[in-house]
């Protein structure tokens, strides 16, 4: 049994014998430069002879590309090149983004610049390169493309109708992927249930809106035939591999660097057509080419996510036990599956995750992933979790309401108990160890639930409508190769770290997982300092450079702390062993009689300081002549870590939202939000708390405000930050965060991921709170974003 009470000792046990940083709210020292305006984002970098590219993008959702007139643009001042899809395809191969383990999945070949047809508004068609950005934009106005508008598939509801035109006739239909999961006897479970509740849930398309747009600088040196790409990206080794494959290069020819990344959230973990086009231009022109998307380009070409319509139902018995769930999910992904992670993953995750926290035995899911002529969708923070959680938790509330049970009590009764692990969920997901019961108890106390219910009842008498909503959640983190590797995608689930004692006795860590603001470098420094036994001031973290760091997967699926952190821990343990071996050789002592303590090697028995790290560095690098024959100091070591015990290490948590709904205006005021999160060992409470809060706010954005709105012809109507609403400070509530720590046994560190759970739970919690507030009117809203207009419609006021 892995129940948390049995693990208590482990929870409290430190990772090292002199733990000063792990588990402490140590500030991110390396982030100071960001507060002083001294970061290095892509657009801050200037290279000699650097040119600038802008893209002429399809103005229509679907069009046949005719003759492209470039003569006028080509003659504009400063213009260096104008390149179309045919020219680009001579050096960059097309790709088809499918995964082998998503059986039957299909997509069409996609090119860096569209050839013959453009399939969404925003697809890049022609590249214009000039000496300056302004000159490139001036010339862009003079690109004249003849086109013929083709019928666009806009609505996902009709995408599979026989009368709907096919986006890629060679595929035979507009279906990208479908999946059915049936664990058996679902119909019987529903037929015999005392209570069945059902609803149709809508999830609007939204997008990540990283404050720094997507951007890169590609540089090609014809002398050594080497490509260097500075990229605002989450997975530098993945991009290195893709550039190799599409341009017929080898890893030794391609160097990818990620400096400061201005927000990512999954938007910057995909390979975009313009990524390849910019690289192709650098190769053609043999000089650096910079691409920085403007905000309209971001809205039409960054991946979108979450366009789902789900019919769901839940069965329960009179005693209050959930018997089963059933869902039917329809989702649309744009005209192509996105490279290389594919666009079927989100729907697939929904199928895997619905009902995840609960102990029901019956489950059936049906999924259709269809093509349409809108911006491609792909993995954005949470990836299916916010959808699965909102559907599950919405149905759970409906069942509780029908049973006249308190929603919190109903959840307590139905979650998989804390002493039942390891076990499998109804969908077949493997759960190592979770703490739903502890989390539910904790949130009840945190929010003072009985008092809040009393307040709600009192205010209702005065015509003030407040609601309380819960969302219990699971989140998959620390992925094994089961996520992408087994499907044939060359995306590493392992990560490596090198730990090096430098001559003066300080430590450098080189690691494949980079920093996009989460505080990754901060926690790696904490781990390194504790595990080697040194001050955090003397640790330097190096990330985001494929020439330098060990091969790794980068940032996705909440793997930075759990996978990257473990690689750092293993490398630092090995470095400490080598430090002791070297000290033993210098002192002519058996290393087992020595220990490290705060940058010194001590006599284990007496605690006497024998050698400072600076002396070990000096001898290890400059006086190796004094060491025994055949002895190698090896003050740099590399270790890799793969989580192989489970397909994923699931985390869990619960959120609660307290809202006030004005039935006259439909306005929702968020009064307060609570989250209890179990991400295993908490490495830095301050960092993880605000990461949870940031994720919650992104989840609230999707639940209340954010939606990429399209007209009937497939044109985006709100491609600006003024029209596409993301949460601002004044409309967000204070968010209280607490933790339960149930470490994973799959690593020494015991850390699980934490970056996405906030986004997973917030939409369900806020939706349930709104519906709780609306309960006296006997209406519900399950279509996100839940706007004031939708609330007034539900109330019959408009």
């Amino acid at each position, binding site marked *: 049994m892995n129940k948390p009470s049995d693990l208590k000792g482990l929870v409290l046990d430190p990772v090292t014998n002199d733990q000063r940083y792990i588990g*402490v709210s*140590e*500030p*991110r*020292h390396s*982030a*100071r430069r*960001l*507060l*002083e*305006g*001294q*970061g*290095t*984002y892509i*657009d*801050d970098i200037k290279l000699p002879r650097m040119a600038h590219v802008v893209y002429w993008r399809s103005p229509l959702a679907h069009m046949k590309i005719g003759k492209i007139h470039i003569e006028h643009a080509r003659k504009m*001042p400063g213009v260096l090149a104008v390149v179309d899809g045919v020219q680009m395809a001579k050096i960059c191969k097309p790709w088809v983004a499918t995964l082998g383990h998503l059986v039957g999945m299909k997509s069409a070949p996609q090119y860096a610049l569209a050839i013959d047809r453009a399939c969404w508004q925003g697809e890049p068609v022609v590249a214009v390169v000039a000496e300056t950005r*302004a000159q490139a934009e001036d010339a862009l106005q003079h690109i004249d493309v003849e086109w013929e508008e083709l019928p666009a598939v806009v609505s996902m509801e009709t995408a599979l109708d026989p009368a709907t035109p096919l986006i890629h006739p060679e595929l035979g239909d507009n279906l990208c992927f479908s999946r059915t999961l049936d664990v058996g006897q679902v119909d019987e479970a529903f037929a015999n249930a005392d209570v069945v509740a059902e609803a149709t849930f809508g999830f609007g398309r939204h997008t*990540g809106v990283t*404050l*720094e*747009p997507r951007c890169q600088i590609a540089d090609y040196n014809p002398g050594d035939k080497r490509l260097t790409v500075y990229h605002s990206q989450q997975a530098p080794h993945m991009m290195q591999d893709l550039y190799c494959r599409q341009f017929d290069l080898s890893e030794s020819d391609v160097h990818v660097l990620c400096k*400061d*990344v*201005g*927000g*990512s959230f999954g938007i910057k973990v995909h390979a975009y057509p313009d990524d390849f086009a910019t690289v192709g231009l650098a190769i053609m022109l043999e000089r650096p080419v910079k691409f920085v998307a*403007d*905000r309209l380009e971001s809205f039409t070409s960054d991946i979108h996510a979450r366009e789902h319509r789900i019919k769901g139902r839940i069965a329960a018995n009179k005693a209050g036990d959930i018997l089963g769930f059933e869902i039917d999910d329809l989702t649309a992904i744009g005209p192509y599956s996105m490279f290389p992670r594919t666009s079927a993953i989100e729907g697939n995750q929904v199928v895997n995750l619905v009902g995840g926290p609960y102990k029901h035995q019956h489950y059936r899911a049906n999924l259709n992933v269809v093509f349409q002529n809108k911006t491609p969708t792909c993995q954005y923070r949470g990836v299916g979790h916010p959808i699965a959680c909102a559907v599950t938790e919405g149905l759970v509330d409906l069942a509780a309401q029908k049973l006249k049970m308190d929603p919190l009590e109903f959840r307590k009764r139905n979650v998989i108990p804390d002493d039942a692990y390891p076990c499998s969920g109804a969908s077949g997901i493997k759960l190592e160890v979770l703490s739903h019961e502890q989390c539910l108890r904790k949130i009840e106390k945190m929010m003072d639930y009985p008092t809040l219910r009393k307040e709600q009842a009192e205010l209702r008498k005065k015509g003030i409508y407040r609601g309380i909503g819960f969302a219990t959640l699971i989140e998959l983190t620390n992925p094994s190769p089961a996520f992408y590797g087994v499907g044939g995608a060359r995306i590493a689930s392992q990560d490596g770290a090198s730990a090096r004692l430098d001559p003066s006795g300080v430590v450098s860590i080189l690691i494949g997982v980079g920093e*996009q*603001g989460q*505080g990754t470098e901060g926690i790696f420094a904490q781990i390194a300092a504790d595990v080697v036994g040194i*001050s*955090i*001031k003397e640790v330097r973290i190096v990330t985001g450079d494929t020439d330098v760091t060990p091969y790794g997967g980068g940032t996705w699926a909440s793997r930075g702390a759990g996978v990257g952190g473990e690689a750092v821990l293993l490398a630092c343990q090995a470095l400490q062993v080598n430090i002791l071996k070297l000290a033993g050789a210098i002192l002519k002592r058996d290393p087992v009689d020595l220990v490290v303590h705060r940058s010194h090697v001590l006599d284990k028995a007496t605690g006497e300081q024998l050698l400072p790290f600076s002396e070990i560095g000096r001898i290890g690098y400059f006086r190796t002549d004094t060491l025994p024959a055949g002895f190698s100091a090896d003050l740099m070591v590399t270790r890799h870590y793969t989580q192989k015990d489970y397909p994923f290490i699931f985390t869990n948590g619960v959120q609660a939202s307290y809202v006030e709904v004005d039935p006259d205006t439909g306005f929702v005021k968020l009064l307060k939000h609570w989250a209890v999160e179990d991400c295993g060992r908490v490495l830095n409470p*301050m*960092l993880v*708390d*605000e*990461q*949870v*809060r*940031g*994720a*919650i*706010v*992104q989840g609230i954005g999707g639940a209340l405000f954010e939606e990429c709105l399209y007209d009937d012809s497939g044109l985006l109507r709100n491609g*600006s*930050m*003024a029209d596409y609403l*993301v*949460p*601002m*400070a*004044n*409309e*967000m509530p*204070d*968010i209280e965060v607490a933790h339960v720590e149930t470490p994973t046994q799959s690593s020494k560190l015991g850390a699980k991921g934490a970056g996405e759970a906030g986004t997973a739970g917030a939409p369900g919690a806020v939706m349930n709170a709104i519906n709780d507030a609306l309960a006296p009117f006997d209406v519900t809203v399950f279509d996100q974003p839940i706007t004031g207009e939708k609330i007034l419609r539900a109330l019959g006021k408009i």
Partner: protein
Amino acid sequence: MSLKKKITLTVNGVEVTAEVEPRMHLVDFLREELHLKGPHLGCEQGACGACTVKVDGQIIRGCLYLAVQANGSVVETVEGLTKSGALADLQESFMRHNAMQCGFCSSGMLLAASELVEQQPKASREEVREWISGNYCRCTGYHAIVDAIVAVLDARAKGQKIKPVVANA
């Protein structure tokens, strides 16, 4: 083609004379001509606040303000205000509260917060939220930023400074 205008302005305490195209925005002038990379471009239409700089003591959107408009003005950016120490309390407080993640919004957020600290020293938590609502942050939940600013207001009210963050040796 050359419609360039000559401008003279003071940027972070140094007088600068340059010839700029009339269409060039102040933030582009600062970033491209003076290599001050602290102000960032998030939306280029005045929505996000990442390009916030100070002109004659008042914060403005660098992407909605032309460089020629700043002729004769005193311009300050996060770089200059860091050097002068004007932002020191806020920067230390942002460090202490982890009030930044990717940092792309931070220079704008700090300048907005600094104007609040000057103009509304008794601002409530809600007023702080309202004040910084012209600056998008996509990473944090705003909670830590509000905490950090409130901590500076509290310290100032007591006549105190925010203690500099030092690494725990």
